[in-house]
């Protein structure tokens, strides 16, 4: 506690403080604070419990993604993208693959595009689930968290069936997937799509019309749309302010133009709106997955899981042992010697918390000359001091958890 001004004499008898002589406290919140769900440091200046200003320090898990990416062949960068937004790593993986495909001009079969859509929407659900259940935890409702995390485990089961990993998936390859989805995987996806809406409804019943939850979150951390645009908000946080910008609609990729879905928007951009936008998006995601499953059933193509690009997709192992050409491709791919044209592309996907962009500059070498990630968290987290100014400390915590700031993505 730091006194900025000496206490005047009348304090001894006057219990109501004079607003002219504010007694400001400085509070250091973080970098490891249990309420912040990650490594964020905020030095708050408080007047009682009302926040006057906040100063942020970030970079506590800076891992130098952009530097490492300049020293890795293209296919090895997938593992870096996993660890950026680790709550929804498949979206990052697919975004990176699509960036390289855009640079090399690879076109994918419809089946692969729809498979990607399924995986990306599952990842979006997984990410929104964490965010929304943590909003619940921060308002004191732990029940929703423990209940809905079972469904998250179901998504992990699907990931495991596709690629063998749960969290840092490294899913897919440039040009498609590493293998076809197994029958178990399809069965699990169908089962998830069938069972999940009921579970989400239970979760909604706990919170959405809960009077305590509504009182706690409505008007907490509201942000006007023009400021949100100036601060570069994207994703659910921008849509909660009432701007219907969604990369899936504005710049469709991976066949999103074939799907019919809504872009939910809020009004005031407060915590409740952000919660509701995510909640509705999960429902839309389920609808997209259902449509994708239908479309896949109607496609005559039932087998393909990659584009026809031998220079990017590893040949089957038995061919590597028996055929000259397959051996050469295998060697070239694994050593990262696949030819890449010179050029630069920017590709963006709708990540779970905003426009996730990859600006890739290639000089024709085996590694990118420069790779810049547009990380939505990094960009919108800087508005945090403006959002929490004049609110209570406990609301500031809630605002942060509803913004869904992921430390790995923030600090690159």
């Amino acid at each position, binding site marked *: 506690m730091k006194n900025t001004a000496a206490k005047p004499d009348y304090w001894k008898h006057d219990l109501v403080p004079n607003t002219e002589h504010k007694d400001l406290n400085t509070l250091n919140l973080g*970098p*490891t*604070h*249990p309420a912040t769900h*990650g*490594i964020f440091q905020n030095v708050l200046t408080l007047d009682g419990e009302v926040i006057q200003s906040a100063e942020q320090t970030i*970079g*506590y*898990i*800076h*891992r*130098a993604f952009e*530097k*490492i990416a300049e020293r890795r062949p293209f296919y090895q960068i997938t*593992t*870096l993208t*996993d*660890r950026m937004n*680790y*709550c929804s790593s498949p979206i990052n993986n697919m975004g990176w693959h699509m960036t390289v495909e855009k640079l090399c001009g690879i076109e994918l079969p419809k089946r692969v595009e729809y498979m990607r859509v399924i995986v990306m929407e599952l990842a979006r659900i997984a990410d929104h689930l*964490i965010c929304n259940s943590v909003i619940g935890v921060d308002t004191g409702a732990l029940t929703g*968290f*423990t*209940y809905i*995390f*079972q469904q*998250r*485990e179901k998504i*992990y089961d699907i990931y495991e069936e596709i690629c063998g990993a*749960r*969290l*840092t998936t490294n899913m897919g390859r440039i040009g498609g997937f590493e293998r076809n989805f197994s029958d178990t995987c399809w069965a699990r996806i169908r089962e998830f799509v069938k069972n999940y809406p009921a579970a989400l409804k239970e979760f909604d019943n706990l919170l959405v019309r809960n009077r305590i939850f509504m009182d706690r979150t409505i008007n907490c951390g509201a942000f006007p749309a023009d400021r949100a645009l100036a601060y570069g908000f994207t994703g659910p946080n921008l849509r909660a302010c009432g701007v219907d910008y969604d990369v899936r609609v504005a710049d469709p990729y991976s066949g999103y133009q074939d799907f019919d879905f809504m872009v939910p928007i809020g009004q005031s951009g407060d915590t409740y709106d952000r919660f509701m936008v995510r909640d509705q998006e999960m429902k839309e995601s389920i609808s997209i997955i259902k449509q994708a499953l239908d479309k896949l059933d109607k496609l005559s193509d039932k087998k393909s899981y990659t584009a026809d690009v031998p220079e990017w997709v590893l040949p089957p192992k038995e061919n590597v042992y028996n055929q000259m050409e397959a051996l050469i491709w295998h060697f070239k791919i694994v050593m990262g010697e696949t030819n890449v044209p010179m050029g630069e592309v920017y590709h963006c996907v709708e990540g779970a918390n905003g426009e996730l962009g990859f600006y890739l500059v290639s000089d024709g070498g085996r590694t990118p000359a420069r790779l810049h990630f547009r990380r939505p968290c990094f960009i919108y987290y800087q508005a945090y001091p403006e959002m929490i100014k004049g609110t209570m400390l406990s609301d500031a915590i809630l605002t942060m958890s509803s913004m869904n700031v992921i*430390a*790995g993505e923030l*600090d690159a």
Partner: protein
Amino acid sequence: MSQEIIPRPALGKPTIVPPPKGSMGTGFMTTKLEDAVGLARKNSIWPLPFATSCCGIEFMATMASNYDLARFGMERLSFSPRQSDLLMVMGTIAKKMGPVLKEVYTQMAEPKWVLSVGACASSGGIFDSYSVLQGIDRIIPVDVYVPGCAPRPEQIIDGILKIQELVANEGFRRRYSKDYEHLLKTYKID
């Protein structure tokens, strides 16, 4: 609206941790004090989750209903380093974070244990870069390492079991021994 009644699954016999070695009779038991204390400590560890990145999400999964950390007497997370026994470091520790981690470790009261979860905390992992600390054992002593990037909840639980073994079998005098003093001195902790 009718509600479906789901039959409750039959509960198994509650398991009780086996007593330490000693002789037992009606109403009494003799054993070493060390063993009795070890048993109590082992089953009531208060962990301090120091979750920085991806592994922290797997820790959340470990805590949640499917894997249920409460089975090990560990559901009471202690966010205050002063009142915790086990520091669980999960995720990358950057060089900027190093001093903070050391500060947290020195604030913990003895006896204390450290579990390093994931490749990043154990060795720097895939991030062999200018900004990442290449393993937390460069600044604090570590008892158990859990490999994996990110380790599955089963692996984290296995690491916790290993820690429990260490806790149960630790002698009273270890923390006062010359060896331990020397260990702390090598890390410049007093």
